[in-house]
């Protein structure tokens, strides 16, 4: 049995993976830093297990590409360290780290054939012709590139080219982690779905650590087991898609994840209770601290219901998307969106609403109070 698994490791070579740890990582593109905004990354800590599928999610300019380039070794962090399997690799270059990265735009070697593109990283690592041939054919098969192996790479369509980029990462059996930097940006919408399923399938087949950077929540949530949400150079929450949806740790996560995003409205916190519009809102969380500059209450539109009494609102607009209705209402503190099933009767004019106690959270200075 032991012998068998040993042989398996030897032949597939695919069980060499890495745990990735980021310790208090900060990076700035400036030589002098005066305030928080001069930092592209601020105090990032991450612990990623072997063989997981992770997504880095955030809007443009939040620092996710910077973080990715630090993990791959293309960028040296200003502060902090990167560990692969508890070994410090902060000063190593990408080749020494044995990583693969797929970029936003397909990167191919125009003058080479598809076959030579895939063989290139292996040739540079001094593998024998027979080994290269076997590996390239295997990956070509996996990515459905077999029929085009002998064509010039420059003649392929955008998704074909992106498959080559992906293939150059996959052919190497020594890869610690495969990283994707918004790899589907230039792909047609209907192919996006195909390629994304392909990636997911590949992850299950080869079981290597994959990190996927995107600003598209659907892409992140469908690809990853664990999603890391970034905002202004910081990690605001790490969790499964369900956790991010049900319990946002930061108002940004509430806004960014979900469509429409979370309702976040100013409130007061007194005696461990949320005071909103002159009423006390019941919540399951324990509110001990209350000394914040700004306190807010957050509730997802999915968890707001019409009722006979509760918070008084005016119904402003109803948009029917087919599967559900999005209702815009207005109370004194601001607007509240409600998501209801298409069959729900919507009162017109004045109405009353209640929040689901289980999903009502209080935020102090944008971070959840618990």
């Amino acid at each position, binding site marked *: 049995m032991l012998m068998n698994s040993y042989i398996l490791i030897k032949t597939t070579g695919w069980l060499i993976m890495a745990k990735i740890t980021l310790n208090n990582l900060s990076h700035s593109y400036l030589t002098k830093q005066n305030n928080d905004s001069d930092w592209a990354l601020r105090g990032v800590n991450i612990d990623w297990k072997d063989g997981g599928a992770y997504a880095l999610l955030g809007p443009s300019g939040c620092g996710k590409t910077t973080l990715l*380039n630090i993990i*791959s070794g*293309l960028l040296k962090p200003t502060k902090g360290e990167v560990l692969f399997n508890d070994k410090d690799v902060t000063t190593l*270059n*990408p*080749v020494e780290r044995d*990583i*693969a*990265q797929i*970029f*936003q*735009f397909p*990167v191919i*070697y*125009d*003058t*080479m054939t598809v076959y030579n593109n895939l063989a*290139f*990283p292996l040739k*540079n*690592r001094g593998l024998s012709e027979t080994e290269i041939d076997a590996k390239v054919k295997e990956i070509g098969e996996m990515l459905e590139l077999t029929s085009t192996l002998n064509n*010039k790479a*420059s*003649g392929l369509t955008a998704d074909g080219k992106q498959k080559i*980029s992906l293939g*150059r*990462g996959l052919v190497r059996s020594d890869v610690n982690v495969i990283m994707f930097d918004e790899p589907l940006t230039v792909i047609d919408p209907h192919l996006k779905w195909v390629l994304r399923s392909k990636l997911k399938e590949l992850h299950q087949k080869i079981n290597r650590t994959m990190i996927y950077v995107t600003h598209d929540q659907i892409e992140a949530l469908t690809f990853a087991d664990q999603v890391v949400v970034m905002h202004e150079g910081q990690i605001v929450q790490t969790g499964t898609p369900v956790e991010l949806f049900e319990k946002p740790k930061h108002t940004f996560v509430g806004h960014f994840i979900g469509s429409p995003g979370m309702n976040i409205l100013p409130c007061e916190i007194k005696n461990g209770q949320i005071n909103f519009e002159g009423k006390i809102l019941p919540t399951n969380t324990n509110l001990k601290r209350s000394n914040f500059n700004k306190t807010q209450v957050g509730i997802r539109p999915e968890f707001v219901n019409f009722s006979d009494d509760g918070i008084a609102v005016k119904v402003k607009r109803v948009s029917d998307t087919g599967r559900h209705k999005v209702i815009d209402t207005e109370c004194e503190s601001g607007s509240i969106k409600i998501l209801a099933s298409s069959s729900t009767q919507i009162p017109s004019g004045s109405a009353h609403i209640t929040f689901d106690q289980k999903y009502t959270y209080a935020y102090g200075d944008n971070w959840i109070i618990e």
Partner: protein
Amino acid sequence: MNKTFNQKAWFFVIPVFVLVAFNAAVPLMTVVNYSFQETFGSNVFAWEGTRWFKEILHSERFHASLGRQVIFTFIILLIQLPLGIGIALTMPKKGWGVPVCLILMSMPLLIPWNVVGAMWNIFALPDIGFLGNSLNTLGFDYNFTQQSGDAWFTTILMDVWHWTSLVVLLSYAGLNSIQPAYYQAAEIDGASRWDIFRYIELPKMKKVLTLAILLRFMDSFMIYTEPFVLTGGGPGNATNFLSLDLVKMALGQFDLGPAAAMSLIYFLIVLLICWVFYSIMMRDEARS
């Protein structure tokens, strides 16, 4: 769709027709006119048919200057292209060095051609010129006004000085348009510096380089002012390139018929080579 038909629009095109007629069509037709006739001045012409063309095509003088021209163009392309690419590769990509390099590189291109010729003439004079004097002091027997090898050396050096910048600027623009991801991917793939040049930079520079070759070919093949001022085609006929020879024939000897025939042949050679080059370029484009 309803198009408005208004023939008055032709009036707008008239200025262009007139302009092109005066600066291209009419002079060219005059040359064509001269090439089939003999003239003795005072507007007296005699029909000669294709005599001048036959004469030029069989003339040793034409063969010699065409040969010199081809060798000259070949040599300067051979030097300027690799040198230009090499300089572009070593130029900084950001910081204060970028404008400094760009300005330094543009300087030779901004100097009028006859000034370049005069400058190099004085610079290379064996007795008082800095280059000529230094070479002689170092023990070389250098005199571009008397030794044809030295004349060629000086002419080529002058052209390299004057025009390599063009190749540099074009290559630099080509290099700068390469996405950083290509370099990053190559780094991850473990590519060597040579691999990066061979498989990324050179293919990505292909378009600007074909442009550079085309421009340098045309300009060097038609070179006139600089060697005219520097060597005047001498010593003897050593640096007597096509355009210099043409002017000598037309204005020096006043052989307008043969000169007209020669300029048409000259024109067709340039046109033919450019066309061949352009079609190869376009064919590659269509294939990829």
